[in-house]
């Protein structure tokens, strides 16, 4: 249990660092760290397949997408960086205070959840669950993927020269 809490603390710290850090590249790396820590949590909670997906897609693919986007956009000048730092300090100093306040409030509120336990799961294999029981989800995934592909094609389609 203590290990779980330590991992959850690391997760929140990585997320906070990715939001608070000045450099966008460090933010993207912090997000990848967050995904890796979430992967560890998933693995510890008995979800290895979802953990692999999280590691390969979120920590890998999405981080590469963010880093590529950051490198495709031009960096800020020194003057813009200084101005940006001042603005960020003015906007983000409140976040740690809010987080501590939320944590204290949630710790003080005694939550005693009554979780209604559903009947035991008839199918323990995630492959059977995904391909047999949740077929509609797969159809939705295909539609979403096609939507994304067509969206990207339209976004990057070069304009026809008159």
């Amino acid at each position: 249990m203590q290990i779980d809490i330590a991992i959850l603390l690391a997760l929140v710290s990585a997320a906070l660092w990715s939001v608070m850090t000045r450099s966008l590249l460090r933010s993207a790396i912090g997000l990848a760290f967050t995904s890796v820590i979430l992967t560890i949590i998933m693995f510890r909670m008995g979800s290895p397949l979802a953990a692999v997906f999280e590691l390969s897609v979120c920590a890998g693919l999405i981080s590469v997408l963010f880093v590529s986007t950051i490198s495709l956009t031009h960096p800020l000048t020194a003057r813009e960086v200084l101005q940006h730092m001042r603005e960020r300090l003015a906007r983000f100093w409140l976040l740690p205070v809010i987080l501590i306040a939320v944590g204290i409030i949630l710790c003080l509120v005694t939550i005693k959840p009554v979780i209604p336990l559903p009947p035991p799961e008839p199918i323990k294999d995630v492959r059977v669950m995904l391909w047999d029981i949740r077929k509609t989800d797969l159809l939705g995934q295909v539609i979403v993927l096609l939507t994304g592909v067509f969206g990207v094609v339209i976004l990057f389609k070069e304009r026809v020269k008159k």
Partner: protein
Amino acid sequence: MSAEITHLFVVSGLFAAVLSVIGIYCVLMTFNLIRALIGLEILIKAVTLLIIVAGHVTGHEALAQSLVITLIVIEAVMITVAVGIVLGIHSHTGSLDARNIRNLKG
């Protein structure tokens, strides 16, 4: 349900709430479009954490995993399209600042 599992659920819920606060604050307070996407990602991480913990607590790990896989696919597609839009905005305005794209402001 054992007391330890209930305690794990409560603690994980607390951390998921804190993650949500980080994501919402980032989306609301930043003007940088890429950082706003990062905030959105953190929000999705909070949801993923809650689904996984709920699956572990109730013993429905297979269902939770299938839901998380669907969520990850949707997340990847959403981020790809959003990044494309951000790059388009950057090529038009030359900046990633959301304040520069207020052309439709009424």
